[in-house]
């Protein structure tokens, strides 16, 4: 079972939403580094599949779920003065 440990200074929805997208980007980079190793035969196919199944996928699923959660909170946050009139052609 994987879980996300947020730093003590990452408390607000905004901060955590941004934090999660950074984690997702870091995870993507790690994934692609593993993919490069696989293509270069530096790791075996079995090691590549094992990484995807037991490392990448659980972390990716968790990050996606957390992103959805904080995005929903941000969408419903009315503390700011967002207005469609602020969208300009």
């Amino acid at each position, binding site marked *: 079972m994987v879980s996300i440990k947020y730093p003590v200074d990452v408390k607000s929805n905004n901060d955590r939403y941004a934090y999660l997208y950074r984690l*997702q980007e870091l995870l*993507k980079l790690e*994934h*692609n580094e*593993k*993919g*490069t190793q*696989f*293509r270069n035969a530096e790791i075996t196919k079995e090691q*590549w599949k094992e990484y995807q199944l037991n490392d990448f996928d659980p972390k*990716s*699923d968790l990050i*996606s*779920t957390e*992103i*959805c*959660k904080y*995005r*929903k909170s941000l969408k419903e946050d009315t503390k700011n003065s967002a207005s469609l009139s602020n969208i300009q052609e």
Partner: protein
Amino acid sequence: MALEDFTTYDEVDSDGDLTVAENTITIVTMRQDAVSWVSEDKGANHFGDFEHLIDTKITGITNGFTIYWGISDGAATYGDMDTANEGMAAYINVYATDIKIRIADFTNSNNDFYTGAKDTAYYYKIERNGTTLTNKIYSDSARTVLVDTLTITCTNTTYSDIIVCGSLDLGAAPTCDGTINDLDLQEEETHDPTDDANASDSVTFNAGKNLTDDANASDANTFNAGVHLADTAKAGDSVGYNAQPATIEDTAKASDSISFQMCHAHLVEDTAKASDALTFEAEINLADIAKASDLYSDNSPPPPVVEYPCPTFTLYGTSTNILFPKPEWANPNNSISKNVSLFNFKSGDLDTVDRGINAQPLTIGGTVFIYDGVANWCDNATMTIWLDSIKTAMNNGETFTINELGDCLNGVYVIGNFTFNTIKGVPDAFTWTLSLERVIDV
């Protein structure tokens, strides 16, 4: 995993923009307002959680739109899904310089997108896990280079239809060109087992199969008599039969002698021949236990039944039986003639008429005495006491004295079980019997 065959899918192509091959749909100038789609109904609630693979390459340079993956309960174009608030889709907005690769849930209107490039192949892994829908976008078919992950919160509604191409069905002129390829639903073909094997199951091999081969006389076989023979033994077979249903642990040898042990529970189907050298070992169970009080038999032949009248007869052992000849039924009133020699015991007649022959069957019992004369009983024996008198005396509890034992007599015999039986009107049923038991030797 197997790729989906798009040629088996339902196709609607209002402007003739689609070319459907087995694993590829080619889109040529599909207008946004066209009503075009390719989909398949997989059955109600078929799509819950899943992981689907598909790829696209958008080649057109004009603005346009196409759904390249979607699930719904019938709606297949963006316009229909949006109107019905039904289903989920991954689709591409084509702009002048780039494309937007999106995922959306039409029920809650959540969506996410990635800005990609035209004339570029993208490979997707679209997953739903509960209420999270992700679309991982890769730049290679091996899906080792992750470009972006699109994520939305989705409903957990299950759907029946899979959509591999769908027009916007809204707006106007802008068109889309490109290909949609290689949809893999990654669904294992399932087989419903009728039973689950358990680790604790024992496996039984039934070795008791019938022999399909016929035994031949030349076969060197050992017969286990506990198994039914499917072949029929022939008179010419050289076989030793052990009729006991037990395993033969010894191997028969040519030098063995053969004996038949006859058990009554087994039928011998072969016919014994006079030339057979056989030893029969009769196995008889004793059903009774001999007692000290039992009369013994010395195995000597039983005494013959002596017919009367006879010139001579021999008394065997201590008793014998005499069968008197059947008298003739001479009178129509079922009486017996006194003249029948049967009743002439030398000294007088035995009158049976007075004993109520008409009340047949009649049995005279009791014990009477006669003197046995010398060897020729029929000529010399003397009936000293009338049978009728003896019977009367016995009934009175009197004592009899035998007075005439002497030189002419060699013993006293007791007549036991002196009976005659008749059945009225049936002459052949009239019989006399008595037994003589030597009680006094003279």
